[in-house]
């Protein structure tokens, strides 16, 4: 026979963090002992006296004596007992603390003790509120009124019962003697202050999630149980071990570093929202703000992971890498993250794209990883899964961490960011203002709205960020779900892409397009694209200067395509002009001779690329030319050894003899 939960709850619910209740009950039974417990005194009211009232200072003295602790701790312990509802104050009943003076308290009757098994019922609360309303109409406070109306809406079918029960309980209470009635009312009121706290107060009964299994119950020893124990111990043996000095040292280091950044352990500026109900801290520290706070910037110096996980930090780092012309590392890392965390449907495609963009020989944004890792990755890519690029990603991560991160932290850009970061002033709220804040507490924005705002922010940042023109190619211009590889915008969503300015200027290479155009027009004598190319270029130049819209650029590009201007000429002319191309001019030079013969009619026009580590064979195709398939593009490739970037696991159809 089981005593079941009253609300016919067929799922058991256990509140494991409320294990303290059993212990508190033991202490309370000791406390109330007439001989050895806290000294009680009668409470004098106008009409009567009620016994068993205890003073706050007596409680604290008793606790300090019993547990051999100092008064401060005894006071906190006493406050905990009051907050849980085992003792209730007689004066100032809404503040559940122990005051170390002569203010009076009383023990709560066991019926109203907080217990594990019986959750607090809304029906009872409704009856209680109705009873209070009987006694004196309009006595309900604002939050109680709101709760009452809410319960009236949700428990409407029971409402007659609730009103009747309230009346009956009231009448039954009248049968009792006056002092008992008073005591009972105080007990009930105290019970509901604990379990339905007024807004702006902290409830001692917050216990987190309920669990389905009682963690304190003994588990039956079935074979299943033993099997689980065996698996657990086997795994424990297999776990790699670290010396405790090392691990503890790491913990200590972590704690000391983050101590001043933890809002619970140290003061946070401007004010801790949990304490003062003022949300400035959160609004200043939103994911995408214009100016980060000083604490946030300081956190970036703690570790590379911190820098990357903060979007603003990552953006700053990305800009820095662009200047150093190694932004493909970060782009690769981000694309790996995208693969790991993205949807399973597009995974295979993404893996292929990543390979073509970053890993293949001759890829446009080729990253520098060692041969062994490359081997592993490529062989893994035959059957791509989420974590196939893990080894390469780790390698790149370590590379960035060891080299670039240190440089970034020491760079003037970062120091500038640090200087510009805001350090807010501390709030000094008076008590009245604190109450005002508590009253004005509002729930935060819906997550949908937050996400929309974030997207807008990201789009804005992407639009305003200088585009790395050197990175533009078919694989790096933002395709809807593959936009992450472009190194220009984070968001894989299509919303960001329309804002991408194709031909904006980069700080590093001053207007390479214009340079190219100039040189192009100058050297454009060969090939069938000469006049058309010049015209096309002139047209292309127009939109290049100002702010561009994609469609206009596309239009000009189309014209460019038709004229079929070749990239090789531009390569040759551009390479000496751009300072970063020093090392690879040898690669770029030899293109020129072969060019004109290999210009099939369907060849699409090309964009310029000056990037050092992009091998010259790569053609950069504007985004509009998606209808071309690989073969034709391969066919259109000129240049020495221009091999189509095919994934090694795909069938190797010979692409017209080049390579």
């Amino acid at each position: 026979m089981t005593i079941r939960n009253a609300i016919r709850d067929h799922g058991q619910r256990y509140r494991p963090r409320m294990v303290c209740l059993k212990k508190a009950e033991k202490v309370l039974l000791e406390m109330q002992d007439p001989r050895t417990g806290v000294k009680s005194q009668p409470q004098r009211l106008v009409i009567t006296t009620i016994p068993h009232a205890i003073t706050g200072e007596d409680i604290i003295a008793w606790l300090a004596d019993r547990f051999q602790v100092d008064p401060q701790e005894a006071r906190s312990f006493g406050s905990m007992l009051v907050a849980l509802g085992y003792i209730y104050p007689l004066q100032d009943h809404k503040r559940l603390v122990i005051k170390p003076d002569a203010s009076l308290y009383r023990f709560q009757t066991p019926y109203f003790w907080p217990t594990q098994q019986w959750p607090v019922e809304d029906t009872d609360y409704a009856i209680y509120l109705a009873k209070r309303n009987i006694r004196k109409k309009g006595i309900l406070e604002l939050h109680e009124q709101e709760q009452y109306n809410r319960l009236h809406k949700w428990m409407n079918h029971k409402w007659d019962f609730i009103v009747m029960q309230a009346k009956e309980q009231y009448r039954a209470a009248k049968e009792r003697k006056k002092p008992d009635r008073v005591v009972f009312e105080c007990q009930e009121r105290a019970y509901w202050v604990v379990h339905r706290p007024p807004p702006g107060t902290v409830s001692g009964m917050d216990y987190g999630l309920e669990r389905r299994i009682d963690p304190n119950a003994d588990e039956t020893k079935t074979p299943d149980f033993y099997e689980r124990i065996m698996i657990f111990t086997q795994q424990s043996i297999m776990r790699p071990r670290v010396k405790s000095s090392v691990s503890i040292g790491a913990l200590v280091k972590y704690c000391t570093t983050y101590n001043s950044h933890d809002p619970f352990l140290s003061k946070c500026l401007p004010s801790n929202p949990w304490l003062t109900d003022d949300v400035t801290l959160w609004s200043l520290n939103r994911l995408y703000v214009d100016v980060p706070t000083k604490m946030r910037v300081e956190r970036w110096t703690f570790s590379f992971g911190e820098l990357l996980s903060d979007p603003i930090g990552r953006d700053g780092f990305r800009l820095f890498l662009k200047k150093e012309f190694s932004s493909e590392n970060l782009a690769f890392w981000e694309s790996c993250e995208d693969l790991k965390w993205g949807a399973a449907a597009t995974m295979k495609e993404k893996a292929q794209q990543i390979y073509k963009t970053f890993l293949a020989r001759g890829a446009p944004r080729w990253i520098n990883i060692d041969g062994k890792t490359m081997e592993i990755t490529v062989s893994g890519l035959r059957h791509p899964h989420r974590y196939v690029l893990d080894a390469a990603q780790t390698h790149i991560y370590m590379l960035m961490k060891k080299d670039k991160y240190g440089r970034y932290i020491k760079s003037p850009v970062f120091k500038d960011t640090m200087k510009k970061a805001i350090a807010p002033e501390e709030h000094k709220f008076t008590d009245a203002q604190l109450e005002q804040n508590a009253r004005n507490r509002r729930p935060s924005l819906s997550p949908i709205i937050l996400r929309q705002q974030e997207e807008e922010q990201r789009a804005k940042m992407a639009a305003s960020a200088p585009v790395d023109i050197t990175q533009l190619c078919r694989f790096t211009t933002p395709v809807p779900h593959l936009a992450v590889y472009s190194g220009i915008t984070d968001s894989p969503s299509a919303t960001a892409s329309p804002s991408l300015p194709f031909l904006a200027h980069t700080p590093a290479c001053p207007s390479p397009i214009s340079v190219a155009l100039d040189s192009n027009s100058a050297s454009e004598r060969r090939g069938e694209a000469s006049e058309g190319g010049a015209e096309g270029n002139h047209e292309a130049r127009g939109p290049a200067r100002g702010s561009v819209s994609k469609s206009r650029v596309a239009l000009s590009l189309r014209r460019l395509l038709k004229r079929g201007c070749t990239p090789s000429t531009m390569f040759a002319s551009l390479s000496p002009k751009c300072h970063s191309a020093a090392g690879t001019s040898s690669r770029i030079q030899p293109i020129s001779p072969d060019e004109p013969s290999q210009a099939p009619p369907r060849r699409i026009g090309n964009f310029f690329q000056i990037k050092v580590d992009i091998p010259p064979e790569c053609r950069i195709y504007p985004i509009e030319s998606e209808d071309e398939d690989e073969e034709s593009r391969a066919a259109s490739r000129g240049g020495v050894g221009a091999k189509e970037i095919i994934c090694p696991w795909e069938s190797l159809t010979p692409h017209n003899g080049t390579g």
Partner: protein
Amino acid sequence: MPLVNNKVGDDSTVGKDKALADGQALVDSLIKVVACYRHLASCVGSCTDSLQLRDELRQTREKAQKLAVSTCQHLTSHLRDKSLPEDQRKEMELLWVAFSSSLELLHVDMCKVFKMGDIFSLAETGTLVQTGIQGGGSEVAARALSLPDLNQAEPPAVPAGMESQEQSTLGQEISQIDHMIDDMEMKVNVLRWMVEPHGPQYADPLSSTDSASLGLLTVDEEQPGHQPLCQRSHIFVLLMLFAIVCVAATLSVCIVLFS
């Protein structure tokens, strides 16, 4: 108002109405007994806990169970009757909801009393919590059992045996109530969201003398020594009482005239 105990009025109505009235009366008395049981239960474990209290609890519980069984039978039989007219069915369903809610409350209270009886054994009076209650629940029990007063001689003190027996009986009764609730749900399908209450949202304030003085008591707790206010409030209260009595009289006259 269907929730008013209309034993005064409609004796001349059809059988079905009588059934409704009977059901109403049963439910009302069950609610009353449950309320009293709750008051008594709140004293368990406190310093006034005694054999007498436990005895009163037992008696109240038995009364409640008797009422519950009869109400259950009454309501179940009527609700399973397919020929019940629609408005009567609605009233019956309302009664049903009230009945099941009071049964749930009774179940909770019984469980709590059981649990507390385990923890607070009457043998060790030192562990009974000093809560400030002085009197027992005799008057409440009297109200529950509808007796003018409870003349009970203190039963001979055989604590251990009596208690354990009572505990086991209580355990059995709890399971019985469990079964009753289960059966109810199985036999009769009442859609709770279709039930609409008639009554007001707020319980009407009852006679205000006691309420006012009780208010005084609690007010005095907060600020001891508020004497002059009492006098003024007393006079005000008396005036209010007179006014209310007059209003009640005129209303009853109107009802009698118009019914």
